[in-house]
């Protein structure tokens, strides 16, 4: 069976003289079964660039993105139209996606018109109300209002209502909850889970906030400087991270429980200030300069992503790019 989405050896290099490897040989798949895949990493780890490539907004330097087995940059017009309906985006900023001059529901009306989702005005209205209910918005609190009259949480859920109208196969959500209030985050995440369970819609959820990834479950991909360091089921990775970077990242989550505080102080990055003495080049483990378990090998070659070689049996579908496990 072909995958819903297959990302193969994706590479994105920006700039002429000072080349930046934003994405460096990234491969992963999203299966046909409805699922949520979280992609986590700090700023600059390449996660948004990957999202833009998958959405077809950016052509990669190398590598391919296959949607149901077809390269997304080779499709004809009809295929592109279908692809654009099947893969929907939700972006970070719930303010800048709206035109402030128009009423907020315009984002729903355009979709209904462009994709011919309703035959009459009454049907269009019914469609809109159904979509709003699917994202826990009362029609009267949104319809007829302008974007500035809605909160960030309402605006972001309205984007999900728009997605719901399209009934896509896949949502690419790039930091969708980082600008909405804590109280509203859980509702937004619940909608994504409901979409998966009730509508069969998968999500690629991009975030720097590991606690939201934990709540969503599914699978997780940990990125660092454009490379995948570790991937596997979210539960497995969060409870037993293997890669030293994943361990550092997960132990740094500020757990909202005063009984579970950070214990020892984290030593500052050993090489952070000494940028000139840093090992350079990319034919090494990119985390080697911060890694507490660094070995000579780590500076000489790049570790490939593969199943970890562990004494006891490891959970299925787990991959890590670290010489400690090879």
């Amino acid at each position, binding site marked *: 069976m072909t995958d819903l989405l297959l990302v193969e050896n994706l590479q994105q290099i920006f700039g002429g003289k000072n080349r930046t490897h934003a994405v460096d040989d990234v491969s992963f798949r999203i299966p046909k079964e409805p699922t949520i895949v979280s992609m986590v990493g700090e*700023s600059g780890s390449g996660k948004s660039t990957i999202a833009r490539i998958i959405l077809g907004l950016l052509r990669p330097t190398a590598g391919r993105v296959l949607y149901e087995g077809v390269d997304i940059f080779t499709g004809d017009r009809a295929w592109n139209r279908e692809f654009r309906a099947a893969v929907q985006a939700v972006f970070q900023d719930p303010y800048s996606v709206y035109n402030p001059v128009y009423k907020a529901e315009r984002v729903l009306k355009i979709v209904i018109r462009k994709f011919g989702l309703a035959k009459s005005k009454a049907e269009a209205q019914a469609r809109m109300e159904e979509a709003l209910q699917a994202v826990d918005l009362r029609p009267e609190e949104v319809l007829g209002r302008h974007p500035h009259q809605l909160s960030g949480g309402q605006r972001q859920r309205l984007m999900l209502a728009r997605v719901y109208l399209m009934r896509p196969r896949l949502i690419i959500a790039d930091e969708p909850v980082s600008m909405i209030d*804590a109280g509203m*985050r859980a509702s937004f*995440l619940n909608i994504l889970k409901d979409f998966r369970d009730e509508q069969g819609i998968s999500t690629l959820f991009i975030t720097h906030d590991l606690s939201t990834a934990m709540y969503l479950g599914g699978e997780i991909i940990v990125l660092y400087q454009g490379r995948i360091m570790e991937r596997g089921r979210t539960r497995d990775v969060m409870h037993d991270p293997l890669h030293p970077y994943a361990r550092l990242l997960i132990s740094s989550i*500020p757990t*909202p429980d*005063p009984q579970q505080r*950070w214990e020892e102080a984290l030593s500052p990055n050993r090489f952070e200030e000494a940028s000139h003495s840093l090992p350079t080049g990319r034919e090494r483990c990119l985390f080697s300069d911060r890694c507490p378990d660094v070995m000579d090998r780590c500076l000489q070659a790049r570790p490939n992503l593969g199943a970890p070689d562990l004494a006891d049996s490891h959970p299925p579908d787990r991959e890590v790019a670290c010489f400690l496990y090879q």
Partner: protein
Amino acid sequence: MPALLEICGLTAGLQSRRAITPVVSNVDLDVQPGEILGVVGESGCGKSTLAAAIMRLLVTPQVLQSGSATLRIDDDKAYDLLNLSENDLRQLRWRHLSYIPQGSMNSLNPVLRVERQMTDALLQRGLSKKEASDRAIAALELVSLEARLLDSYPHELSGGMRQRVIIAAAVSMHPTLIVADEITTALDVVTQRQILQELAAIRDELGATIIIITHDMGVVAQIADRVAVMYAGEIVEVGSVSDIFQQPLHPYSQGLIASIPRESGQRVEGLPGEAPSPWNYPAGCRFHPRCPKVFGRCREHAPASQPQGPDRWVACHLYDQETASDD
């Protein structure tokens, strides 16, 4: 022990041509010497306005309407920060009061070296060049940065390092009180953890008192000793960090803590409704339209903050002394 800072009836608002819209209303809050107090709330609840008001750094159209904030230092001296002359205030700033506003890591001057920016205020205080430079180096050490950094320009530093330079500058005079507003919001989790732990170490080493303003319940749980929960311009509950997280009393605090996403298996619900803006704060308790436990009195009378056990305050009619039988 008397409070280091005693805030009484602080009210601040936004001035328009006709009227003043209150943003922060009637805040009473004690800050104990040597503690880390976390002020939490959703965006727009007035927590940054409260911080700026204490520091007397409100800018038009923000105006201070009433209240006092008494700072007690050196055993017997007390100063009302809200009614002090600019001149007297300047004597306190930096030596006793330090403020790290939101986004200040982006306020370093790009064309000046770090040293010049860190020693500027120290030289103003009458320190010699050598003394100022030594102090700057000592302050950088507190945040795990090397002295070498004094020669760099801001663009050569990462975001986390710039934030550390700002913190170092703020603590270089060993201030009594530090107010830190969202200092780790733009940073990744690893850097956030390092900076918060350094801040806690500064409290231990310098004996400073810290007010940390944040929207992130995780940050509060990790480093605060006590927590004040703000909603719609008011402080609705104050208590120790363990009380607030284990037994929140105010329905808003309860909702805030219940809505934290945790493990995938346990579904949590968000707080229903939206926080009001200062232009439409509801009558009575400001939380009543969203409150699952609302009853008659809440719609008409604003609850006063009342003690609930040692070092615990809550502003909610559920805890009124006489029972709610009259409704």
